[in-house]
């Protein structure tokens, strides 16, 4: 039976079914419970005074502010020092990393515009903001570096006193004989691409509501966050509290995208202030704070060469990457990971034997960067796919043919490429063929030719994508960074026959709790409607990693499958004892226990009531309980690579330089699909993010003053409904062989490929018009007009 929403065949199992998400019924009714929807009696509202300069020494006179009616307290770094220790990013993955300590508020010197320097607590947010304005601050401006070139120039002013250089970390990777490969190459293509900072802009801003329990000294922190257990650990460590006296609650989270997975000064200041004052404290970021003080991402200048032999085979890549970190490398994961993620995406879909890369990460007087949806992959992918197009063009070859020849075949894997990327189970050729069919390529090309004849500036761009998802324990474990890559589920039979579960994976709008409910339903043998999965409260949910690296299905799915199978085994053991039957002869289907003949012998509700309320009727020595826990740890592959093909058709406006995306196609392979509605949503949403990244979104700074210029949503442009076309999707399903369900991640591959596809499409249109190429993302209309020769 076809499913009306997707047109796909409807499977018999809950796994794989396009089931609408149960929780969305509450959200469409206005019943969401986001951070700012919760209040604590007696709470104080916080506002921060933030540095107006990128680098300055300062002194503060808070007397007038503290005397304002309605202001309860004005706190500075010295006030919070006794409540919260500073932190510093250290990772064995980045030996020698230079990243100074951070505390909840800057002490005497601000190192980026927007850094919190003082905190006002008042009867309302408006009064707290009045208080922040009433602080008399003396700013002694220091030399600042914001651009990458300036940060690493010889004699550049140091971002922090005493630094000999602003280079925070760097490294070289070499494999094979790149010099020989480039010397022998029949063709070498080269490019320098620059990428302006982006930020995630979850529509619900970050925020925190802290409640300090007097007497016992316990802290409850409500956060809009992706990783409650991670934050619980850091709060316990920085505030010096036993971890089991810290509770972190993440209710509905209005989008994360990687923004809500770091340690932020302002959120820790809220916790420290609540402890100091013994009052609940609330702070919710406004949009200007969010744009200037949420992590930014993806500021890179990449120069890369690709060597190709006479037969058109790729020999190798030589890459130099400059990455902007901001004032520190973000805690706890380190901003430098983005450069490694960029490198892991260079050349990844293709066969090549030689590689060399040089990475340099620079400190700057800007907000720290961090891991944002797809991390560095869109950059490595854009660089690679740009060079592929360039090589095909230089050879006078169809870029599809160039790719098909060089794409790794399934039978060449598992393998590791020269940049250390572990590749397995990537069905590139199937995805490429699926895309060709989905696009109806001959007709499409004929249409483009006809349009160009008529004077339209049309361009078609292609990108092949590999995205590394669902990182296993080795990634952070070997770096001695305390990030959990394992996950746990506790599943419970209710005495009414329903199944409830607590998961350490978290719900941030991606819908994973629905996907997990479907897995649990099949694992136990009940209808998906009888299952409810909850997450986000450390007092209820077991330990685990939460939402990052597209890990919900691949890791959370395995955890809940394991918990469900364990619970099923327990229930069958109990039922077997009651029914005097061997457990292996019984089955659970549709919430009923069936015997070998398929006859229903009892319901799970009857069994649950017996086990819970009439234990005296249970046979002696039968011990299984109503709950089962499973902790999933993948022992094999370090990451689960997924793959896909993206294509975009764009039209340039020759008068305005604006780029319009007319059509978009994406074929993805994320292994077993738990729920196609959720996967399609991730793909399309990810593509929209990537289109924004390619054409609209930029965190800009004034080159002279270092002032942040993108502080409102009228300056930082998000894609609107009129900017994103319908996105045609195709699926290849190559299950991961190393797990029970075979799911890989789906959340980031859309974002990974879209910038590359758009960049290639724009350059295809420019090439057809006899213009130059654009080499900077986002692609500004002025750059398009210049490439067309219509602006000097």
């Amino acid at each position, binding site marked *: 039976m076809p499913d009306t929403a997707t047109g796909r065949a409807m499977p018999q199992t809950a796994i794989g079914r396009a089931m609408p998400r149960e929780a969305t019924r509450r*959200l469409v009714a*206005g019943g969401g419970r986001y951070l700012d929807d919760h209040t604590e009696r007696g709470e104080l509202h916080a506002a921060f005074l933030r540095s107006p300069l990128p680098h300055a020494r300062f002194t503060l006179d808070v007397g007038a502010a503290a005397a304002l009616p309605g202001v309860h307290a004005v706190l500075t770094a010295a006030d919070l020092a006794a409540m919260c220790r500073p932190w510093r990013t250290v990772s064995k993955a980045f030996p020698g990393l230079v990243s100074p300590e951070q505390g909840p508020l800057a002490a005497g010197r601000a190192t980026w515009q927007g850094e919190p320097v003082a905190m006002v607590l008042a009867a309302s947010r408006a009064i707290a903001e009045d208080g922040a304005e009433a602080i008399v601050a003396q700013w002694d401006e220091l030399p600042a570096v914001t651009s990458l070139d300036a940060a690493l120039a010889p004699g550049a002013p140091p971002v922090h006193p005493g630094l000999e250089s602003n280079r925070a970390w760097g490294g070289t990777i070499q494999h094979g004989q790149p010099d020989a490969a480039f010397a022998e190459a029949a063709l070498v293509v080269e490019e320098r691409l620059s990428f302006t900072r982006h930020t995630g802009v979850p529509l619900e801003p970050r925020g925190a509501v802290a409640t300090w329990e007097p007497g016992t000294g316990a802290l409850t922190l409500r956060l809009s966050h992706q990783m409650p257990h991670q934050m619980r650990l850091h709060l316990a460590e920085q505030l010096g509290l036993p971890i089991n006296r810290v509770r972190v609650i993440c209710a509905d989270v209005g989008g994360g995208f990687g923004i809500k997975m770091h340690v932020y000064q302002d959120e820790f200041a809220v916790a420290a202030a609540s402890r100091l004052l013994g009052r609940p404290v609330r702070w919710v970021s406004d949009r200007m704070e969010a744009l200037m003080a949420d992590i930014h991402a993806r500021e890179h200048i990449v120069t890369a060469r690709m060597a190709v032999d006479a037969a058109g085979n790729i020999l190798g890549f030589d890459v130099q990457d400059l990455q902007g970190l901001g004032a520190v490398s973000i805690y706890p994961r380190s901003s430098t990971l983005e450069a490694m993620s960029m490198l892991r995406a260079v050349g990844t879909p293709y066969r090549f034997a030689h590689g060399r890369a040089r990475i340099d990460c620079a400190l700057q007087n800007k907000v720290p960067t961090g891991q944002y949806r797809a991390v560095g992959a869109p950059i490595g992918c854009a660089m690679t796919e740009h060079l592929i197009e360039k090589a095909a063009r230089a050879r006078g070859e169809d870029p599809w043919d160039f790719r098909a020849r060089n794409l790794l075949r399934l039978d060449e894997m598992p393998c590791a490429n020269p940049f250390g990327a572990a590749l397995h189970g990537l069905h590139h050729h199937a995805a490429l063929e699926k895309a060709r069919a989905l696009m109806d390529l001959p007709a499409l090309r004929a249409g483009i030719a006809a349009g160009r004849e008529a004077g339209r500036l049309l361009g078609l761009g292609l990108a092949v994508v590999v995205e590394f998802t669902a990182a296993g324990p080795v990634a952070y474990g070997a770096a001695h960074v305390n990030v959990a890559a394992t996950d746990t589920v506790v599943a419970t039979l209710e005495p009414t026959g329903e199944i409830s579960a607590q998961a350490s994976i978290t719900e941030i*709008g991606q819908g994973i709790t629905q996907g997990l409910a479907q897995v649990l339903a099949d694992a136990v043998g009940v209808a998906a409607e009888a299952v409810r999965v909850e997450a986000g409260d450390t007092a209820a949910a077991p330990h685990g990693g939460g939402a990052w690296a597209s890990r919900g299905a691949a890791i959370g799915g395995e955890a809940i499958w394991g918990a469900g199978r364990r619970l099923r085994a327990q229930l069958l053991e109990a039922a077997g004892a009651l029914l005097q039957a061997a457990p292996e002869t019984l089955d659970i289907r549709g919430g009923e226990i069936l015997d070998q003949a398929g006859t229903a012998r009892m319901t799970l509700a009857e069994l649950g009531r017996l086990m819970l309320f009439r234990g005296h009727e249970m046979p002696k020595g039968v011990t299984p309980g109503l709950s089962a826990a499973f902790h999933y740890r993948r022992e094999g592959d370090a990451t689960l690579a997924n793959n896909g093909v993206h294509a975009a058709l764009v039209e340039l406006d020759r008068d305005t330089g604006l780029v319009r995306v007319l059509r978009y196609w994406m074929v993805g392979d994320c292994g077993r699909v738990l729920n196609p509605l959720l996967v399609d949503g991730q793909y399309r949403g990810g593509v929209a993010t990537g289109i924004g990244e390619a054409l609209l979104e930029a965190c800009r700074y004034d080159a002279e003053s270092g002032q942040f210029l993108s502080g409102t949503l009228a300056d930082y442009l998000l894609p609107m*409904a009129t900017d*994103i076309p319908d996105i045609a999707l195709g699926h290849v399903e190559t299950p991961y062989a190393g797990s029970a369900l075979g799911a890989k991640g789906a959340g980031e591959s859309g974002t990974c490929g879209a910038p590359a596809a758009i960049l290639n499409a724009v350059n295809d249109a420019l090439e057809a018009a006899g213009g130059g190429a654009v080499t900077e993302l986002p692609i500004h209309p002025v750059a398009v007009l210049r490439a067309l020769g219509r602006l000097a």
Partner: protein
Amino acid sequence: MLPPDEPLAEIACTVNGRRVAGRTPLRQTLVEWLRAELGLTGSHVGCAHGVCGACHVRLDGAVVRGCLVLAVQADGGTVETIEAATGPEVAALREAFVAHAALQCGFCTPGMILQAAELLQQNPAPTREEVRDHLSGNYCRCTGYQPIVDAVASAARAMQAGGVEGA
């Protein structure tokens, strides 16, 4: 508790069908007042500068940005929020949004539904381009918009057919 020097005004209006009266700081926006004083947290503050549309409410029948209207401007008026928004369009849209996964995090959804309901009141059979145009002042960061357009189109069809699709 606000300090004695905070300028306040008395207002009285109809909210979700009930007469309410209260005091509001002069500088408080309508969406803040609805959220903080009346506990109607379905309308969200996404940007507070009139760009994102998450704060949409109905004021005297028209959809407005709740962050650009002061609470005092609602004095004597009639306010409807997502919690009690009425009309067949809203009911059809709610069903269609769920069926088409037209929301992920859901933060934009209340504003999106009110805005789409306004479109369906004016134009019962909009084209996809008309839907996109009408929703272009409501930002969604999760879905890429296509499922939202699908849902609005589906709700329009359901209403024309006299039933609610997916219900």
